[in-house]
């Protein structure tokens, strides 16, 4: 089996260890003998081959980088829309997540692809720190958030419910968004290595799209689980059981 992963703007949208998610996807495929081919999509690249891609990934970038990318992505928007509707897997982090909806940049201008009807308002609220998010699959996502401004989902389904931390806006306890197999989230850096079950769900969804029913082989995740436990313990020992 083989998966094609498209890394969107790797040289511009990579800030808080976001590319670590690519590494987690690659390794967790390789450890199961699933081969992986990476396509790096950069500024001005064409999107004709998006049809052959199974997973799309975009990380976070500084504001200037974000504006450049938001502008460039207009040309690939129809291809992305098609992929999203087909149920292709798409993971977008922080700035990459915002771009998928509408957002206000630091100068107050409204940008974004409007692939989804969510909106991020420029405010001075700074949401930074460890975060724990409970998902429908009865799995808690653990990560670090670091974002300014408030995101409102306008009825879209969130990725999960905030147990500790801020999430989309610090008000309604929602974190991230979810639509078919598209996930947007503020959880940075090692999201997929710290939350291996989410990583495996992504791989599984991509394989199912391509090959029909699949069963993923089990991996030894003892180090991942212990790491989760330690992070939770550092946040507050009362959370350790959530690992």
């Amino acid at each position: 089996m083989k998966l094609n992963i498209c890394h969107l703007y790797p040289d511009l949208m990579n800030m808080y260890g976001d590319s670590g998610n690519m590494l987690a996807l690659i390794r967790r495929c390789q450890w199961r003998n699933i081969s992986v081919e990476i396509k790096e999509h950069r500024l001005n690249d064409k999107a004709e081959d998006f049809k052959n891609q199974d997973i799309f990934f975009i990380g976070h970038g500084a504001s200037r980088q974000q504006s450049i990318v938001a502008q460039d992505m207009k040309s690939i928007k129809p291809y992305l829309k098609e992929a999203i509707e087909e149920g292709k897997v798409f993971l977008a982090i922080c700035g990459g997540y915002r771009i998928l909806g509408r957002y206000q940049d630091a100068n107050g201008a409204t940008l974004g692809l409007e692939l989804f009807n969510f909106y991020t308002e420029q405010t001075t609220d700074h949401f930074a720190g460890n975060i724990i998010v409970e998902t429908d699959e009865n799995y808690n996502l653990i990560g670090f958030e670091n974002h300014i401004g408030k995101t409102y989902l306008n009825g879209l389904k969130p990725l999960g419910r905030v147990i500790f931390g801020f999430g989309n806006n610090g008000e309604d306890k929602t974190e991230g968004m979810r639509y078919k197999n598209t996930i947007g989230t503020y959880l940075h850096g090692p999201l997929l290595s710290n939350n291996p079950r989410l990583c495996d769900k992504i791989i599984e969804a991509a394989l199912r799209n391509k090959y029909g029913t699949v069963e993923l082989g089990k991996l030894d995740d003892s180090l991942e689980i212990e790491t989760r436990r330690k992070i939770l313990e550092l946040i507050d020992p009362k959370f350790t059981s959530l690992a």
Partner: protein
Amino acid sequence: MKETFAVLAGKAAVNLAKIAGRQGTSIGGRVALKISPDILTWFSSKVKNDIIFVTGTNGKTSTNNMIYSIIQEAGYTCACNNIGANMEVGLISAFIDSSSVFKLSLDFACMEVDEASLPKAAASTKPDIIVFTNIFPDQSDRYVEIDALLNKIRDGLEASPDTTLLINADDPFLVSIGNLLPNPKRYYGIEKWFDNISEDTMADAVLCKKCGSILSYDCRYYGQLGRYSCSKCGFHRPVPDFSAVIENEEGAQLFNILDKDKKSIIAVKADISDRYTAYNMAAAVSCGLLIGIRPEIIIKGLQKYKPQAGRMEEFYIQKPILLNLAKNPVGFNESMKTVSKDGRTKTVAIGVNDLPQDGRDVSWLWDTDFEILKKIDDTITSYILFGRRRYDTALRLKYAGIDTKKLVISEILDDVVNNVVETKSEIAYIISNYSTTFDIRKILKERDSK
């Protein structure tokens, strides 16, 4: 009069702290500042020749201490905050240290200044020269985007238009700030490096600060440092006034500084194991030349310079153990490249904390190229992980492709040192971030048999 009292009180506070057994590195400064809020301005009026600031993300302390060593070698008196206390009170403490209560007159002052404290310190001290090392995204100010930091530095310098800026020509961020300021500017840079160590595999695109397009590089040393130009707006690396050429010669390195006409001004044999050191030396030598110190004195000053604690500091406990502080991905990458040049069998220990001074977010572990170690994995007998985020570090190594059987996760620092000593290897390297370095260094010092 008030100032004399402030100095006296500051000195008394330092002595009291010492009696109480505390390393009161900034207490004197705090006391003096309370008594006399303008004390820094007063101190700077007592400096006869030049006040030099050294600022930037990495290499401040080393560069500043090299400059101090050069000035001392020339026989001048000089105030220097050579303990790495680089905020306002740290500067005041350094002045207090080098002053007698009855007479304060100094030839020079060289101070490392935290890049975020630069505007305030520059306004009250009016330095004659500011040496810029580099600007990298750092852990402790991860919440500040680099553009905001650059703007802050630029705004802070607007009040000091006469200060000479000695800028690293290889850093496009610094050069772009310099271009926006009317100050006199001099540049240093690396012209030639003896070995072409592979470039960072995680090299992000660098945007031109002038027009926003992606810069192109003839040669990229690390981070955004290198020889760059913008094909769109013409922004480019300035020709350095002082160019370093580093050549390999019989095991050691020959460090040359050339002037604009490519004439050699200084040539000195030195052990330059990493590009950090090369940049620090280039900056210090250029500064020495700028303030009129003779080349042969500069060379002697460099030779007498002793690296400070935790910067590739050598200990010996049954085997050589090298301790290196690394504060950010660039620092870790450069340290690991140094490790990878050592062919001996090695134990590698990595310490990562997430205290406020280290930065609470450890996602930078995934911006760091631990794959450098994977490439030399056959010479590394074990990896010892310590500090509050030892598990996160272990996980990062697992995803770098390192066998988890080789990972030893250790909570107790004494165990870490025991493991380092007892694992079979000819040499050990300990790379750690800010607060872990001080913790582990204490134990290493106690057991050192060198």
